[in-house]
């Protein structure tokens, strides 16, 4: 078998760069963790309040996932079988909450669901008791706002995969809506729902810092807050390290499970295609679908509208520094995109060339590592050699790219597999390999997905307030940081204006990348 040196290996993507990228990410996290541990004093263990934080973290993530996905089912169903003016726009807007800067979204949610928000004002006007947004349900509400649209998009993909022959068949059989649901939709949901649940669960497990404001008190302590406290107030590096490991293991193992279940995140194209349906024509079904779509749209758009309205009012009061900060944020976002692509593309190429996808876990580690832990760890590493202030932006950019890595891999790997499978032999026969293979075949083939992943990274980086908050240099404030500073200086109106700029930039960079990727890209 000496000559069994399989020729195909020579034609496929060179895995060395991919392995290097994966090792780099792994080193980035583990070195930081190691640095924190090296400075820790021995004897740190988890106290009862830490375990309470672990319990709360898991519980709220589970609840958020279940509520998000089950609310998404009727919305996706209604969207799948109705066509109406503005449907395409609504489906596009479904992508907005997920990339919305958290700090901005919470403002919007408060304007609607807060104590003196629009909902309670309306309830009061008709003499009904008001509702409180604070507490466990507030955390879940915020997470549902972020993730229900994402779940809807995933489920909508599921509906698109139902073969039209099957729909024609049920139309001929004149099945009732309930029978159609059981015969056609339920089997499809059984395939798609577990993955959507797992994805939302992992996101909520790690992105919970967002909802702390709505948590209502120490009951709602999450692991991330415990890490925050250990670093900032107690300076207990040992406890911080232990908590970081707990979070890594918890989120990492959940992510690993999710990986087997999570559906492929597909580029928006195709979702605006409406499949012809012959069922659900009765008046009741129509009214129900209409209500579901209207409610979902309200839930989604009203908080966004509130942010825009408040922001427009605050815009004139915004100091010029905000624009400088916006410039910094844009350059951070753009650099984060570049770093992400340099890491994600070779990794995706490597993973696509393998049968299993276990190495994708390395990407998921980035999502589950605490940015504060990474920031502090690298501070410890850099400090003996150079001034860590000089590296704040670099670390911020690396952390941003790492946060987006798992999503980028989910987006890039499947089409990469397809591209390799389809064009591997043709490329080999033409002698297209190595860098040429990327330039001539892979990059053009994946343009739409690269644009989508880049847009996602840009938007997430734009709104991020992770490492930068602790180690920022006054001259290089980012937009979210400047917004917090404005709030800290009592200038809430100006902060609302900054929030609007932040919203516009986040959605803008996503839109540009996503459209750029699909512009004149052939099918």
């Amino acid at each position, binding site marked *: *078998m000496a*000559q*069994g*040196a*399989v*020729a*195909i290996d*020579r*034609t496929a993507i060179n895995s060395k760069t991919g392995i290097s990228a994966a090792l780099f990410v792994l080193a980035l996290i583990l070195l930081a963790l190691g640095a924190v541990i090296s400075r820790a004093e021995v004897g740190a263990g988890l106290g009862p309040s830490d375990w309470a934080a672990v319990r709360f973290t898991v519980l709220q993530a589970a609840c958020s996932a279940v509520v998000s996905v089950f609310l998404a089912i009727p919305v996706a169903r209604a969207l799948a079988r109705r066509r109406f003016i503005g449907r395409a726009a609504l489906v596009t807007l479904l992508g907005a909450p997920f990339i919305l800067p958290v700090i901005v979204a919470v403002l919007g949610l408060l304007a609607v669901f807060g104590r003196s928000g629009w909902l309670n004002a309306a309830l009061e006007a008709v003499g009904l008791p008001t509702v409180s947004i604070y507490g466990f349900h507030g955390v879940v509400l915020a997470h549902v706002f972020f993730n229900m649209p994402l779940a809807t998009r995933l489920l909508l993909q599921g509906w698109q995969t139902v073969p039209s022959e099957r729909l024609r068949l049920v139309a001929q059989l004149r099945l009732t809506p309930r029978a159609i649901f059981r015969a056609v939709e339920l089997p499809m949901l059984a395939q798609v729902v577990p993955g959507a649940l797992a994805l939302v669960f992992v996101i909520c497990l790690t992105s919970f810092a967002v909802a702390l404001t709505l948590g209502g008190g120490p009951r709602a302590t999450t692991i991330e807050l415990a890490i925050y406290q250990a670093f900032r107030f107690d300076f207990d590096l040992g406890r911080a390290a232990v908590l970081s490991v707990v979070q890594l293991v918890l989120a990492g193992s959940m992510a690993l499970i999710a990986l087997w279940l999570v559906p492929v995140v597909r580029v928006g194209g195709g979702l605006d295609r409406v499949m012809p349906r012959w069922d659900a024509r009765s008046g009741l079904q129509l009214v129900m679908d209409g209500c579901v779509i209207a409610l979902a749209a309200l839930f989604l758009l009203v908080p966004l509208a509130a942010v825009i309205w408040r922001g427009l009012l605050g815009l004139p009061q915004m100091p010029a520094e905000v624009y400088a900060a916006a410039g910094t944020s844009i350059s951070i976002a753009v650099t984060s995109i570049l770093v992400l692509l340099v890491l994600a593309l070779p990794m995706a190429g490597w993973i696509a060339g393998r049968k299993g996808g276990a190495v994708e876990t390395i990407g998921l580690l980035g999502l589950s590592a605490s940015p504060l832990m990474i920031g502090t760890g690298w501070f410890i590493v850099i400090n003996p050699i150079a001034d860590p202030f000089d590296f704040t932006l670099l670390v911020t950019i690396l952390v941003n790219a790492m946060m987006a890595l798992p999503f980028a891999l989910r987006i890039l790997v499947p089409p990469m597999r397809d591209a390799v499978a*389809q*064009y591997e*032999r*043709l490329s*080999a*026969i*033409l*002698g*297209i*390999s190595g860098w*040429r293979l990327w*330039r*001539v*075949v892979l990059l*053009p*083939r994946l*343009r739409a997905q690269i644009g989508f992943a880049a847009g996602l990274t840009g938007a997430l980086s734009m709104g991020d307030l992770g490492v930068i908050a602790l180690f920022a240099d006054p001259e290089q404030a980012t937009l979210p940081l400047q917004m917090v500073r404005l709030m800290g200086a009592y200038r809430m109106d100006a902060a609302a204006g900054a929030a609007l700029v932040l919203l516009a930039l986040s959605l803008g960079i996503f839109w540009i990348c996503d459209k750029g990727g699909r512009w004149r*890209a*052939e*099918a």
Partner: protein
Amino acid sequence: MLKLEDVLITQGDFRMQADFTLEVGRKYAVIGPSGAGKSTLLGALCGFVPLAAGRMYWEERDISNAAPNARPMTMLFQDNNLFPHLSVLQNVGLGLRPDLRLTAQERETVENALSRVDLSNFATAKPGTLSGGQQSRVALARVLVQARPLVLLDEPFAALGPALRNEMLDVVRDTVAQTGAAMVMVTHAPEDVRRIADEVIFVEGGRAHAPRPAAALMDDPPPELRAYLG
């Protein structure tokens, strides 16, 4: 000439032996029942399927382990012969320069090839806008510019209608005639064999039989071939 010496190809449980020589300028048809290994044989010739045993020589040179593009041959597949994101001109140009950086002279060669397959007006078009027959001709134009002494075809026209397929076969025949190359084509249509092949390689029962003159073989097939042809 391409010489196969006691070649053994295995893929899982599948085994196939081959021991024959292909001459330059001849046209060979590969026929045989489904699953007998026709495509695998082409894959092995081209370097996609490794040889489990035996050697392969091109003009005395051992190419048993050479990379696909380092062999004196090119191949047309059943599908995915063109990159949909590249223009017709670029797709053909890849046959000369895998990095797409064509010199003025190479560009002229490509344009000549396009005019020989009657596609001069489509140089800037993307494959997606062309008909199935036109797409096949783009791929053939690339075969022309590659000018390899051996052209392998793995049922590239199976999806075309009978008239169009016959037309394409004629284009192929002219193309290889222009470059003086040998041609090896997998097919399951006996009329294709009569239309284009000088010799037939019959693949059956774990063996790729040595080429036999097409006309004589088709007129008086041995029992196994008769069973296949029905």
